């Protein structure tokens, strides 16, 4: 896959790989807010969320403004009603004053009292104008009032004329018979107007109180709804973000742990969905890379295995013929020739040992080495190793001691491989020890046997101790020149022990000898997983 093309399309609207799509169908059935949140891009989601919140704020504001306007209208209405009532009262007041003025003029008929009455008549014109201005809606009653006033004014004018012409008795008669009842009727009419206005005012105040309560409830409801909606939105968006991030995080952890076979499945089809798909494709590439590396490593091991086998075939012939020569099958060799053939034998065996080590290691690494599990006697195993290294120790004047508890029960494992492991350790101990002793010990530790090889050699620096179990490693490369060896022995021992599910360790101080120990299960019923 092309990495470059992949990473550029990551930011764009790259369609998801087929696998993610297939499982997406079942998801598209998931309707509602969460489904929407999963399908839409992060940017759109955030924009929309902020837009919705903005709209909620604006709508709360609008509702507040509308309520204010309504309250203002109600207040204006109440003010209008008060003006109406004021005008009605003024009119009633002026009517009374006129009645009073007429009475005064009748009691003291002179031009002064009459002038007061006439002025008062003019006042009615203003009063009526004012009332008809503030109470345009009361057309029928106002017309009646206007008619009655016209009559009232006519009667008053008549009385003034009668007084001027000295007909006081007639004037008095008119006042009592006409003016009084007219004033009463006018008062009734204006009272009716006042009552109506007052009823309107009470209704208006009531309505405004109701409007206020309604607005309160509306604003509270909208605020509550906004709160809930914001919570739901926030939850949906954060779930659509946090959940996939967690899934991707877990997936990356698994990849880091070496599990390339997995796929990260997130329900999102947004940027996070793209990210998951991208991680998946990277994981596939890693897996392919890992596989090809594994294969290359296996080919290398296979090649080494084949090669060492091919090397061994002619070497076997060399060793075979030289052994026959030493056995005198072709006649007794002269001393010089015997010595030369012995050198051929020795070097040939050394070469064979190296080839066998390479073969062992490569077989183990290629996973081709299977343990052959049988019951074996620990004592016998140690004895076999002892026998095969006896002469080596004797050559260097080293004392070789064995400490194995008596009467150990039969153990189970790959006897030949364990013997090889112990042989390698003892062989190393003898090789690197110039004086003193090499001791082979076995002890039981619950369900395990611990094999130890102790020597009085140069010891191994702590810094080098971890390194020596790796292939091709020796403490000091100059040792290779004096002591020989390819540094494969310990690596093989470690692998054999690990295949038995055991472990190997070293205790040593520079100049004070070394003690190599390995621990294996006393009875191994199944080969341990190779690491």
């Amino acid at each position: 896959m092309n990495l470059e093309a992949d990473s550029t399309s990551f930011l764009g609207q790259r369609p998801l790989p087929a696998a993610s799509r297939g499982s997406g169908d079942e998801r598209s059935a998931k309707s509602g807010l969460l489904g929407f949140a999963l399908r839409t891009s992060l940017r759109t989601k955030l924009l929309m969320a902020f837009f919705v919140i903005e709209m909620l704020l604006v709508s709360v504001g609008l509702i507040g403004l509308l309520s204010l306007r309504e309250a203002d209208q109600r207040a204006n209405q109440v003010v209008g009603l008060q003006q109406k009532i004021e005008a009605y009262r003024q009119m009633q007041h002026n009517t009374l004053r006129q009645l009073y003025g007429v009475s005064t003029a009748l009691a003291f008929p002179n031009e002064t009292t009459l002038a007061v009455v006439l002025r008062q008549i003019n006042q009615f014109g203003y009063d009526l104008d004012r009332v008809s201005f503030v109470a345009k809606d009361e057309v029928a009653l106002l017309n009646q009032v206007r008619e009655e006033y016209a009559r009232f004014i006519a009667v008053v004018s008549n009385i003034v004329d009668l007084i001027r012409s000295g007909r006081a008795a007639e004037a008095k008669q008119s006042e009592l018979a006409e003016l009084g009842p007219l004033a009463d009727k006018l008062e009734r009419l204006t009272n009716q107007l006042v009552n109506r206005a007052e009823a309107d005012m009470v209704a208006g105040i009531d309505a405004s109180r109701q409007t206020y309560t309604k607005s309160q409830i509306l604003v509270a409801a909208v605020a509550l709804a906004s709160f809930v909606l914001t919570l739901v939105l926030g939850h949906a968006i954060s779930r659509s973000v946090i959940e996939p991030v967690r899934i991707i995080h877990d997936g990356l952890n698994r990849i880091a742990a070496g599990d390339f076979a997995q796929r990260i499945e997130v329900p999102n089809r947004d940027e996070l969905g793209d990210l998951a798909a991208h991680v998946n494709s990277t994981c596939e590439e890693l897996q392919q890379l890992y596989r090809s590396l594994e294969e290359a490593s296996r080919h290398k091991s296979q090649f080494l295995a084949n090669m060492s086998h091919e090397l061994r075939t002619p070497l076997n012939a060399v060793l075979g013929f030289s052994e026959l020569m030493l056995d005198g099958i072709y006649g007794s060799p002269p001393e010089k020739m015997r010595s030369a053939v012995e050198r051929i034998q020795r070097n040939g065996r050394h070469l064979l040992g190296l080839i066998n080590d390479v073969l062992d290691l490569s077989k183990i690494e290629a996973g081709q080495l299977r343990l052959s599990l049988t019951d074996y006697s620990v004592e016998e195993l140690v004895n076999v190793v002892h026998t095969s290294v006896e002469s080596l120790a004797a050559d260097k004047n080293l004392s070789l001691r064995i400490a194995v508890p008596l009467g150990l029960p039969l153990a189970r494992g790959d006897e030949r491989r364990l013997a090889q492991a112990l042989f390698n350790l003892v062989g190393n101990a003898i090789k690197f020890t110039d004086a003193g002793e090499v001791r082979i010990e076995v002890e039981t530790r619950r369900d395990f046997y611990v094999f130890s090889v102790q020597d009085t050699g140069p010891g191994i620096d702590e810094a080098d101790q971890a390194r020596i179990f790796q292939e091709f490693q020796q403490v000091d490369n100059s040792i290779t020149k004096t002591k020989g060896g390819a540094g494969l022995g310990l690596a093989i021992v470690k692998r054999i022990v690990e295949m038995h599910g055991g472990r190997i360790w070293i205790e040593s101080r520079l100049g004070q000898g070394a003690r190599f120990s390995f621990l294996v299960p006393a009875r191994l019923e199944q080969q341990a997983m190779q690491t």
Partner: protein
Amino acid sequence: MSKRVLVVEDQEDNRQILRDLLASVGYEMIEAHDGEGALVAARTQRPDLILMDIQLPILDGYEATRRIKAQSDLRHIPIIVVTSYALGGDEEKARAAGCDAYVAKPYSARKLLETINRYLT
């Protein structure tokens, strides 16, 4: 009458070693170069013992051993299987094929002779 040993081995050098070794103790050696040759030689020459290599062309040592041991008139002939450097499981496979003994290369000529003598004397 000298004992006859059938050597089944595809490498001439190895055959020469065995030739020299067996001649030195007076055994007669019959040779086969592959598994099929071994079957024919076993039937026609009736050897007293068979030394069977495992890695052989045409028919490998396991199969050749199995076929010889499947014939009632040949079953009594001891078969010593010789393999290259032994891996875990080779011995079981050889035993399962029906061989009587098992020797891993590289063998010491002396040790091999000891094993052969165990079956011939």
